[in-house]
């Protein structure tokens, strides 16, 4: 058999049937469900008199709307409360397991899947959420879908898909100290652009990727969608197996041995070809900061806001001018001179225990600047519990960070955690679109370490040289 990539192996394993034009009925192993993109799907099922084909393949959790303050108090926003109640009702009606708001296992959908061992190598995983690409860190094919497709998967356990192309993004070498997976993915997006991965599934390879922890790989794959790719993947290896083993939903006993044997076969074969290849050198990646309103508008912390006058392309120049105006920056100003008002550490990109450990290690003994409001939102109730057992919450609180309950929070500001118009935030989340964190709010995407340093200094600093 011809040499195959990781993606091709998983794709081929999941083809139920194919149309003459290549349109494929693809089997979906696992389905994550949250409150925002599912109500209309369940309603569609009910209207058509259909039932879920395999309710046991799905796991539901409310995350987008949940408050990050005291959960014993009723949700202030009645519309948010109704959406969460609707998820609860639908899961009961259709027999789907749900981690409710007061379950310790509740959290951001892309944090709890891996945490529970729900996410496994070789699987196809979908969710009505574009950051489903996160789960590709385990060597799974995982991608976001719309609500109609959520209904389709519930009803048929399949999706109609056209086979995407493959892109290898190879990062070799060793990252600079204090640089992280977040800096790697932002640098990749800066290089390929926000539409560079459109139509592709990315496989991340190279020695710098191999050296990443599972948390780092999840951060990396999470933002594949910001590069336009619906899915990003890393081949499973010992790091993957060690992470999964013993998790509540992971296979046990003989099944575990069988599964690991199969997972070892998934890595891309030597000589397999990708449709496109992009290469980066890890040493060349500086801590990254976005300056604009698209994740591709990014540069190293030692860089400057670009000057649109130097840009030849009309559309690019206009987009840059518009972004600089929205962000209230000056062309050519150093990134380090940008002063911030808020810091958000959290989201499906950077809210796992490793992120919080790292953030706490930089926060320890320091104080958040008097001009800055900073908050830490753990990715799940279990991450929060773990962090508290390790005393990380005390470090954050002593430094002046707020310590919150788990949820999506200010990544997209569907709950009460919102930027006010004109406020500027250093955020460990994934999108810096206009108004993403609140109408008129200004978002700079950074790593957790860079966010802590910015909170303390009140402006961006180069974490590589920060004392």
């Amino acid at each position, binding site marked *: 058999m011809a040499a195959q990539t990781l993606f091709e192996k998983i794709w081929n394993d999941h083809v*139920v*049937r194919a*149309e*003459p*034009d*290549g*349109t494929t009925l693809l*089997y979906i*192993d*696992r389905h994550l469900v949250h409150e*925002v*993109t599912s*109500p*209309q799907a369940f*309603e569609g099922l009910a209207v058509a008199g259909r039932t879920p084909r395999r309710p*046991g*393949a799905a796991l539901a959790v409310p995350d987008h709307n949940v408050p990050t303050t005291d959960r014993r108090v009723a949700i202030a*926003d009645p*519309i*948010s409360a*109704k959406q969460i109640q*609707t998820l609860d009702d639908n899961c009961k009606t259709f027999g789907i397991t749900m981690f409710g708001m007061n379950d310790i296992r509740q959290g951001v959908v892309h944090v709890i899947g891996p945490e529970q061992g729900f996410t*496994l190598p*070789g*699987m196809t995983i979908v969710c009505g*959420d*574009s950051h489903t690409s996160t789960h590709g860190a385990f060597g799974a094919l995982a991608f976001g*879908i*719309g*609500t*109609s*497709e959520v*209904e*389709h998967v519930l*009803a*048929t356990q*399949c999706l*109609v898909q056209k086979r995407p192309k493959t892109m290898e993004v190879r990062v070799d070498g060793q990252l600079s100290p204090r640089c992280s997976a977040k800096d790697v993915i932002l640098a990749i997006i800066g290089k390929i652009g*926000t*539409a560079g991965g*459109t*139509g592709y599934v990315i496989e991340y390879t190279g020695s710098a990727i191999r050296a990443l922890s599972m948390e780092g790989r999840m951060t990396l794959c999470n933002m594949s*969608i910001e590069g336009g790719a*619906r899915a990003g993947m890393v081949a499973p290896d010992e790091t993957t197996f060690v992470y999964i083993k013993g998790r509540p*939903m992971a*296979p046990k006993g003989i*099944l*575990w041995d*069988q599964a690991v044997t199969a997972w070892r076969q998934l890595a891309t074969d030597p000589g397999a070809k990708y449709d496109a290849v992009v290469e980066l050198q890890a040493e060349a990646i500086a801590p990254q900061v976005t300056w604009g309103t*698209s994740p591709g508008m990014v540069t190293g912390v030692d860089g400057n806001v670009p000057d649109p006058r130097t840009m030849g392309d009309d*559309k*690019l120049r206009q*987009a840059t001018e518009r972004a600089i105006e929205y962000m209230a920056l000056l062309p050519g100003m150093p990134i380090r001179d940008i002063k911030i008002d808020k810091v958000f550490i959290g989201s499906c990109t950077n809210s796992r225990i490793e992120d919080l450990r790292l953030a706490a290690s930089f926060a320890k003994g320091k104080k958040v600047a008097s001009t800055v409001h900073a908050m830490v939102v753990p990715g799940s109730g279990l991450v929060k519990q773990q962090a508290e057992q390790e005393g990380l919450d005390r470090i954050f609180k002593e430094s002046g960070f707020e310590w919150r309950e788990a949820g999506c929070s200010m990544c*997209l500001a*569907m709950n009460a955690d919102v930027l006010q118009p004109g406020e500027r935030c250093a955020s460990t989340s994934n*999108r810096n*679109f*206009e*108004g993403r964190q609140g*109408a008129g709010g200004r978002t700079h995407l950074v790593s957790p370490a860079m966010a802590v340093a910015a909170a303390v200094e009140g402006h961006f600093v180069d974490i590589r040289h920060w004392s």
Partner: protein
Amino acid sequence: MDAFTTLTGLVAPLDRLNVDTDQIIPKQFLKTIKRTGLREGLFYDWRRLKDGSQDPSFFLNQPRYQKATILLARDNFGCGSSREHAPWALLDQGFRCVLAPSFADIFYNNCFQNGILPVVLTGPEIHALFEGVTAREGYQLTVDLAAQLVITPDGATYHFEIDPFRKDCLYRGLDAIGLTLQHADRITEYEQRRRTQTPWLFQDVR
């Protein structure tokens, strides 16, 4: 889902790169549990000035584009979140077709689920259409799905590509789930085979 055959309609131009789904419909409108009534949220922030009043310069606030059914857009339209509320809002406003040089994958896919035809044309073709629509009030296009053509008022025709399967589903307004369920036996066979080969994939979530 409504079938899409041939559409002749007024064109509205949105001259911005990388329009993301957060702009098409901001988060506060995602709390609904219905698919309908989302027109109110369409481009909510861009439609308004800082004081909350309507921005008369925004294209959808201009009387000449009020009845538009075809949206003309730039590269990477619909990037960002998977929210299907974006095509629902466009549909609620009356748009049945979006023309752009490129689309984000999930948005492109979501359009087909809702009877909206996303058409990819070349950069120069899109550029010519922007010039046409800004120069002439009442500018209309005809989009013929069967022939895969966009026809301009002065008779120019632009061919576009579309997957045969998607084209057929949209042209006939087929229920995608119903189509897949016709292959229920194949799905069952697949599950039986995989249950033996990879039993760990069939452990129920509890």
